[in-house]
C-alpha cells in the first residue's frame, strides 16, 4: 500500500539514451513582449488569439514529445499519434512508439489539462475574492486535495481518489475563507495568511500519512505530493484530468460576464442582477472540484493559477471573457514546457515540476505584492 500515483517514475525514458538536457523554452518570454494594458481586444481579436494559442498548444504537444532521450523527430511523434488514432500504419519501432504513446503523450496531455485547469481556477478565484494573490495553491486548496488523495491511496480505494481530493480541497477552501473571515475579512493579506496556515497544516498531514504508510522512498513521494509532479501520469490520469477539465473547466469558461460583474464589488454585482452569494458559492465549489481532480493526478503544483492569469491580463486586459480561455490555453502550454524541463534538465534525475513553477512563481508573487503595496 504505497502512496504512489504521481510518484512512479517510468524507467524506459531514462534508460533509452544518455542525458539530453534540452532547455525548456519557457513560454513566458512570449508573454512579456507585449505588456500594454490598453491593447484589450474585442471579441474577434480574442478568437484570433485563442486560435493562435490552440495552434501553439498543438505544436507544443508534438515538440515536447520529441524532447528527451531517444532522439525523436516531430515526424516520429506524428507517426506514432497517427498510428494509434488509426490514421496511418505504425512505422516507428516498438520502443520508440512506446516512449511517445505510453510515456510522453499521457504525461504531456495531463500536464496540459492540469495547466489549463489551474489557470482557470486562478482566474475564477482572483475574480470572486477580488484578490490578485488568489490561486488554488496559495489558498490551501491544493494541499487539502493532497490530503484527501493520499488518505484514499493509503486506504487502497483508488476509485474514490478524485472525490476524496475534492473533499479535501473543499475542506481547505472552507477553512481558509472561514479563518480569513474570522480574522477580520477577506482582504488579500488576510486570505493569503489564512491560506498559508491551512496549507501548512494540510501539508503536514499529507507528509505524516505518507511517512506512516510508505514502504519505499517516502521522502520522494512526499515531495511529489507537496510540490507536484507529473512523472506518474498515465492514460487513466490523462482521462481524469481531461475529464475534470471538460466537465468543470469548460462550464467555468462561460462565466466571463458573471466574473466581470464582480469587478466593482459585491454590491455592484448585485445591482447588475447577479445573485452574489449563490454565484460565489457555486463557482468556488467548482474550483475546489477541479483542483481536487487535478491534484489527484499531479500533486500540489504551485503558482500556475497565480502566474498565468496575471501574465495574460497584462496582454489582453482584465475582461474575463477573453481572460478565461486565453489563460487556460497559456496555462496548458506553460505547464507542458515546464514539465518538459522538469523531466530533462537534470536527466536522468527528475525534478518535481512544482520546484520549477515555484522558481517562476515566487518572484511573480513578490512583484504582485510590491505592486499592490504601491497602489494602496
Amino acid at each position: 500500500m504505497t502512496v504512489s500515483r504521481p510518484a512512479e517514475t517510468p524507467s524506459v525514458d531514462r534508460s533509452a539514451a544518455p542525458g539530453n538536457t534540452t532547455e525548456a523554452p519557457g513560454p513566458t518570454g512570449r508573454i512579456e513582449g507585449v505588456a500594454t494594458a490598453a491593447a484589450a481586444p474585442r471579441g474577434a481579436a480574442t478568437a484570433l488569439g485563442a486560435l493562435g494559442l490552440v495552434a501553439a498548444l498543438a505544436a507544443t504537444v508534438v515538440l515536447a514529445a520529441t524532447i528527451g532521450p531517444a532522439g525523436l523527430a516531430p515526424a516520429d511523434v506524428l507517426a506514432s499519434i497517427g498510428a494509434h488514432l488509426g490514421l496511418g500504419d505504425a512505422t516507428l519501432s516498438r520502443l520508440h512508439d512506446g516512449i511517445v504513446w505510453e510515456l510522453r503523450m499521457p504525461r504531456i496531455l495531463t500536464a496540459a489539462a492540469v495547466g489549463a485547469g489551474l489557470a482557470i481556477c486562478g482566474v475564477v478565484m482572483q475574480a470572486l475574492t477580488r484578490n490578485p494573490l488568489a490561486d488554488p495553491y496559495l489558498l490551501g486548496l491544493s494541499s487539502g486535495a493532497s490530503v484527501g488523495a493520499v488518505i484514499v491511496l493509503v486506504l487502497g480505494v483508488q476509485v474514490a481518489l478524485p472525490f476524496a481530493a475534492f473533499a479535501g480541497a473543499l475542506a481547505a477552501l472552507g477553512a481558509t475563507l472561514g479563518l480569513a473571515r474570522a480574522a477580520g475579512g477577506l482582504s488579500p493579506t488576510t486570505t493569503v495568511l489564512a491560506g498559508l496556515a491551512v496549507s501548512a497544516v494540510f501539508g503536514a498531514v499529507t507528509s505524516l500519512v505518507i511517512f506512516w504508510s510508505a514502504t519505499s522512498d517516502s521522502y520522494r513521494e512526499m515531495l511529489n505530493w507537496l510540490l507536484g509532479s507529473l512523472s506518474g501520469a498515465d492514460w487513466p490520469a490523462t482521462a481524469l484530468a481531461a475529464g475534470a477539465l471538460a466537465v468543470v473547466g469548460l462550464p467555468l469558461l462561460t462565466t466571463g460576464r458573471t466574473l466581470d460583474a464582480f469587478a466593482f464589488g459585491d454590491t455592484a454585482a448585485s445591482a447588475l442582477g447577479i445573485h452574489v452569494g449563490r454565484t460565489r458559492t457555486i463557482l468556488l465549489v467548482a474550483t475546489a472540484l477541479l483542483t481536487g481532480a487535478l491534484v489527484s493526478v499531479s500533486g500540489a503544483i504551485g503558482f500556475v493559477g497565480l502566474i498565468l492569469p496575471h501574465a495574460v491580463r497584462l496582454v489582453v486586459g482584465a475582461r474575463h471573457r477573453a481572460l478565461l480561455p486565453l489563460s487556460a490555453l497559456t496555462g496548458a502550454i506553460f505547464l507542458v514546457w515546464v514539465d518538459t524541463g522538469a523531466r530533462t534538465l537534470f536527466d536522468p534525475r527528475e525534478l518535481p515540476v512544482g520546484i520549477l513553477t515555484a522558481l517562476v512563481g515566487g518572484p511573480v508573487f513578490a512583484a504582485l505584492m510590491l505592486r499592490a503595496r504601491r497602489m494602496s
Partner: protein
Amino acid sequence: MSASRRGLQGSRLRFVRGSQLVIDDVDLTVPRGAVAALLGANGAGKSTLLHVLAGVHAADGGSLGFDGDDLLALRRRARAQRIALVEQDAYTPGGLRVDHVVGLGRIPHQSAWGGDSTTDQAVIADALDAAGATALATRRYDELSGGERQRVNLARALAQQPALLLLDEPTNHLDIRAQLSTLALLRQLADRGLSVLAALHDLSLAAAHADHVIVLGDGRVVAAGDPVEILTPELIRAVWGVDATVLQHPTTGRPLIAFAPIASVASDEPSAVPVTAAP
C-alpha cells in the same frame, strides 16, 4: 394609492439587519422626470434604503413599484434592467479600460455567451456621451481622477438603460465644478424621463437641484416634499443637531443654508431632541 402612477412608488418599506429595524415604514415617491434628494445624518439609513430600492438587500416588508410594476416580484436581472445604482466609494478594479467598465452596465441585458452586440456598443457610446466621458473611453479606469471616475460610473449606470437611477453621495470627494456638473447631468437625465434619487450631504446643493427632498432619520422618513418648504432651521436642528439660517440665493432664489459654528464638540445629539426653534 393609485398603482398606475409613473415613477417610483415605495410604501411602508422595511428592512431588518440582525435584530435591528434599519428601514422603518418608509414611504417614498420619485415621479418620472424628477430629481429627488435623499437627506439625513450619517447612519440614518440612506445607503441602506438605496440598496433596498436597488434590490441589493431584499425588503422585509412593504411594497415597491415602478410605473405600476411590482419591483419586489421581479427577478434580479429584470430589476437590473430598470434600476441602476451608482455606489459611493465602490471597490476600484485594476486594469480595466473605461469603455469596458461602461460595458459592465450591459450585463443585465446580455446572455452569458457572445461579445457586445452592435446595440450594446451603441448604448455604451451613448452612455459615455451622455456622461461627458467619451474622451476617456480608452483610458484606464484606475488612472482617472475622482471626477472622471464619477462620470464613468454614471456612464456605466446609464449603459444599463435604467428608468430609475439611484446614486449614493455622487458628489462626494468631487471639486465644486465636478459637483455642479454631476447635478446638471442628473437634471438632464430626469428631463429625458428618468426618475433620479440621489443621497446627498450638501443641503444647499440639494435645495438648488432637487425637485423633492426626502429626509431620513433613524430609518424613518422625517419629512418629504419641496425643499423650499422642508429645509427649515427647525428641521435642520432636529435632524442634524446644528443651528442654521436659511437664506435665499441671490440669483436663483433657491434656499441657501448657512450653518452656525458648533461651540463645543460634545454638543447635544440630534434627532432624539424635540424640535426647537433656532435662535
